[in-house]
């Protein structure tokens, strides 16, 4: 990580706070209208998808229904659920859009997400050993993580994780790696497992039991369409999220580095640990504006549709302080993610030989 001294960090903090204050002072009507519009679109797509699905025996209708429901789930999870649960719309004082009470259309319970994502991941972003989102305890993505033989299969793990993404995210708080190492006991996880079962059951009931049964003669079609919609959402959201922190140039940090850090230091870590991708307006909306991961990590509770507006200001601040601003096309960023997953599946010796450079010094 780029080193800044205390005065520089303080200045960085002030510069970023100024951007934040400006947006906060301007929040209002426009933001409320935006999120309600997206919600209207979500409701329309979801209802449209559910209504069309039973007529899925006509192939184009099947595609339209599945796509409609899949996009609905993407919008709900990314642009609505994720952002609302970050408290981006708490100021609207609308009980249906409040971070502490919102429940989203995916297996992970909102409470679990608030703990593992809003708190753990956003506080300890990319700190190896503390941010369990880094590689989801499944993938090895940095030198700090020691190579084990099973890492050589991590491409398969990656594909499985993406296909079953909502279940992986739902089970994230189980901390299976700690269970395996016997650092915690199953008993400690019972309350979590109960919630997980309830929410997972609810989601499975809805998509795989209720709606198929409701349309009985064509149940298999509806079931297939619903599975398809969930798959579309899983693949898309895992891809977007992987592009946020696992790209080649996104930095990682050690626990020691972040001991008792100042707010300025925290900001610096958010800036260098995240990565953006560029694209059209709808690419941003469908990614819940996590295409502006840098802005999101610096200002997780500002309404996400504001990130494009403030991106230039954030870049200017980065330029001023000589901090890299990690961005590139979606294809390029995703390419580096795949490359990372592949590289780190190799033992260090093989990898460094392939890359033709000397092995990193052991610390």
């Amino acid at each position: 990580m780029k080193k800044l001294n205390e005065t520089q960090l303080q200045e960085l903090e002030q510069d970023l706070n100024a951007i934040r204050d400006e947006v906060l002072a301007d929040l209002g009507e426009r933001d409320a209208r935006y999120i309600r519009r997206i919600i209207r679109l979500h409701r329309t797509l979801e209802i449209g998808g559910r209504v069309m699905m039973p007529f899925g025996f006509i192939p184009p209708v099947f595609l339209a229904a599945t796509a409609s429901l899949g996009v609905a789930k993407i919008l709900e999870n990314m642009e609505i659920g994720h952002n609302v649960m970050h408290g981006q719309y708490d100021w609207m004082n609308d009980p249906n859009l409040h971070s502490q009470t919102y429940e989203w259309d995916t297996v992970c319970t909102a409470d679990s997400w608030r703990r593992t994502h809003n708190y753990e991941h956003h506080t300890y972003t990319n700190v190896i050993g503390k941010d369990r989102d880094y590689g989801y305890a499944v993938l090895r993505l940095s030198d700090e993580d020691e190579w084990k033989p099973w890492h050589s299969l991590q491409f398969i793990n990656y594909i499985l994780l993406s296909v079953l993404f909502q279940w992986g995210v739902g089970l994230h708080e189980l901390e299976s790696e700690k269970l395996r190492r016997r650092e915690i006991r199953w008993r400690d996880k019972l309350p979590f497992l109960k919630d997980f079962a309830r929410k997972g059951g609810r989601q499975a009931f809805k998509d795989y039991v209720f709606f198929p049964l409701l349309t009985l003669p064509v149940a298999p079609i509806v079931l297939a369409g619903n599975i398809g919609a969930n798959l579309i959402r899983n693949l898309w959201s895992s891809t977007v999220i992987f592009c946020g922190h696992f790209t080649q140039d996104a930095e990682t940090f050690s626990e020691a580095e972040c001991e008792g850090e100042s707010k300025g230091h925290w900001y610096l870590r958010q800036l260098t640990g995240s990565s953006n991708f560029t694209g059209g307006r709808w690419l941003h909306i469908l990614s819940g504006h996590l295409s502006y991961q840098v802005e999101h990590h610096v200002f997780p509770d500002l309404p996400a549709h504001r990130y494009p507006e403030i991106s230039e200001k954030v870049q200017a601040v980065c330029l001023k302080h000589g901090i890299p601003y990690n961005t590139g096309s979606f294809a390029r960023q995703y390419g580096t993610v795949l490359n990372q997953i592949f590289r780190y599946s190799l033992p260090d010796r093989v990898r460094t030989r392939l890359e033709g450079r000397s092995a990193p010094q052991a610390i």
Partner: protein
Amino acid sequence: MLARVTQSKTIHWLGRQLSNQDNPESWLDPVLAKINPMWVQAYTPARVEQVIQETADTRTFVLRPARRWTGFRAGQHVNICTEIDGVRRNRTFSLSSSPLLWETQGLVTLTIKRLPGGLVTNWLHDRVVPGQVIGLGEAFGEFLIPEPAQPVLFIAGGSGITPVVSQLETMAAQDYPAPVTLLYFVRTHRDVIAGEKLRALASRHSTLTVQVIATNESEEPRFLRGEDLDGIANLKSREVYLCGPKGLMDLAGDLLHQRGVTDDRIHSTFFAPPAPAQLEGTELGGQVTFANSDVQVGSKGDANLLEIAEAAGLTPQYGCRMGICHQCSCRKTSGTVINRLTGQVSGAGEENVQLCISVPRGPVSVDV
């Protein structure tokens, strides 16, 4: 229609499974609001039918609530819900019409005075025109006409007259058999609200006496005096209703006690407007009530609600403790807090606050 369907427990359960919301009936609200705002389910929508200028700073809003609204009793209040600059604001006002108007014509009225610096009252005065829709909650409050009938004394001040108008109209409609006296304090005679109506009621009903007293028309302010009460026949056997600014209510309470009127006969409803927000407020701290845990503690200086709660042995949810993660957000039900990050002062009503960056300013009550 939707409201009736969701009354069924099974359907409500199913709705929760399908929508992931505790109140599935409002799942479609963003769509419905666009098509017809009167279809919204989260609150009872009410269309503004008419706006009547009562005095220079007071207007009566005639509303037609959606038919599913369950009505009210004279003297009750209602929460209204409006959206101002994207923020949903809830405020309590008393209903000024008689329940009869609702039962016969499906209308209710709110009589609202403009408060200096008041966000919602000024918005209502400046922005609301007939045809617009605002939200209503269900009516509540125990400021009710005695049953069976008994002699009554009302002491009202300023816009505190509104629930009393509703009560007097209701009593008149039932030919209330006991004597009723109203002492109504206004700053000047131009500030009388519903004067016409009061005069008409008094002339039609011999048991009703109305006395309007202007406090600010003479050299010396003319407040409530002992003689005002001494002139009232068998004061001790009356049920007394107080509604107005705090000064008037305190004074009335003292004078009544001196004359042997016991507390169980005195009914009051708090109607003092909250002091307008002062941004440079330096007096921090205050009595904090953690309603869910039944704990009350005093705080001094700029301790935030999270620290105060923890010092009192409570363990509210938190994460970052620096205002990022919203793990600590919870509902404030009354009082004002200052946001430590923005320096902004909150409203006095219900809203969500982040405990870790909210510093109480005066008494505060939160759902922790």
